[in-house]
């Protein structure tokens, strides 16, 4: 809800946390609202991930409550940039609300996506994901 006393400058609630999942796997947990204002934070967080510490990157969307076309483009850019550094990246476990938006733009034609983290890391372990469209 808009606070009538809030200043005009508005930043949506957003957080991105990177953790080491072992064996060259990195988990990027994104929460809150991924939009035109917060997309640069996701790009910055993923930009520093590269092999050998991060050969397989799963971007966990389970705590994401909102995504817009800028956020979708940030996911696309992040996955492709990871691929160009030799890492595989995949988007995983979006919530129902976010899935609706991702499906409308036919996300599986743009970036690899899985409904769970387990499936995402399994696919990263078996596929050669290079940032091109998967699925």
């Amino acid at each position, binding site marked *: *809800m*808009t606070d009538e006393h809030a200043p*005009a*400058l*508005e*930043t*949506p609630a957003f957080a991105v946390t990177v953790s080491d999942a072992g064996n060259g796997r990195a988990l990027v947990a994104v929460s809150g*609202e991924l*939009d*035109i*204002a917060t997309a640069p934070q996701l790009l910055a967080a993923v930009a520093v991930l590269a092999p050998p510490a991060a050969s397989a990157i799963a971007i966990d969307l389970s705590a994401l409550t*909102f995504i*817009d*076309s*800028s956020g*979708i*483009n940030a996911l*696309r*850019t992040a996955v492709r940039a990871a691929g160009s550094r030799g890492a595989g990246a995949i988007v995983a476990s979006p919530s129902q*609300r976010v899935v609706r*938006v991702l499906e*409308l*733009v*036919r996300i599986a*034609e*743009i970036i690899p996506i899985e409904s769970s983290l387990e499936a995402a890391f399994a696919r990263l372990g078996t596929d050669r994901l290079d940032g091109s*469209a998967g699925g």
Partner: protein
Amino acid sequence: MLHYPVTESAFPTRRPKAFRHDAVFYGGERGFLAAVLPFVSAAVERDEPVLVAVLPAREQALRNELGPASRQVEFVDMESAGRNPARIIPVWHDFVSRHAGGGKALNGVGEPIWPERTAPEIAECQRHESLLNLAFAAAGSFSLICPYDEAGLPADVLAAARESHPHVVEDGKRHASASYCGVDCIDVADRRPLAPPHEIQVERAFDARDVTSVRRDVTSWAAANDLERARADDLALAAHEAAVNSIRHGGGRGALRLWRDDDSLVCEVADAGELHDPLAGRSLPAPESANGRGLWLINHLCDLVQVRQTPSGAIVRMRQQLHRSP
């Protein structure tokens, strides 16, 4: 006259290697079958792909007549797929690309306008009909017939069909439409003013600093007007996408207006931008493209979207019907 016996000679068996877009005039359900059944049956006999996008009752009537042959026909529920007429061209795009490379002529029946359509819906259906000529100009061998019910539609709607279709079929005969205005009428339609708003409930300006609060204003206003949560979320995202377009392409700022119109909530974003591609938002960009998904999303999130060019800029007007089953 309620019923035209359309003979198969209206639809020649030799397919031209071009997009054909015919308005077919008929009266009532019997007239519909007489006008459409020969076209569909002939396509089935030639073993060509055929997609029929009509109201469910019309689909049932066709299925009854076609019998087992209806298994060779693809059906799309126009009431749901075409609720927002801007979503119909994507249906035909998918049909054409699904059968691309099959080497066969393609056939379609699309009935976007029925008597219960509202005035703004009909305006967008007419824009859609004109845009088809542009969207599929290079589609090769694709014959699309658009049935118009003379028994149920007003005279101005029937006259507009003659302007948006290069050919018409009436009294069983196909001929060039004397009043066809080609792609020229797209630009004219895009500049036709929209009906003025009813009592405006919320009005505000936005720029790059506060664009993300636009969607919050839409969400709270929609909730106060009893729009279901999921459909309010859809409208809020659509408004946000339109506002972001204003930031990126519309001079960096815009104005939001919200009001209630009969049984719909209406949300309008206006800016100083200029529209360049009349087909924007009716196809998805290539997977590697960074842009072009905003208007596509808007079209798929709302019941009706009207995009217009005015002397002062561009307008995106989005509607969500209240108390509608999802």
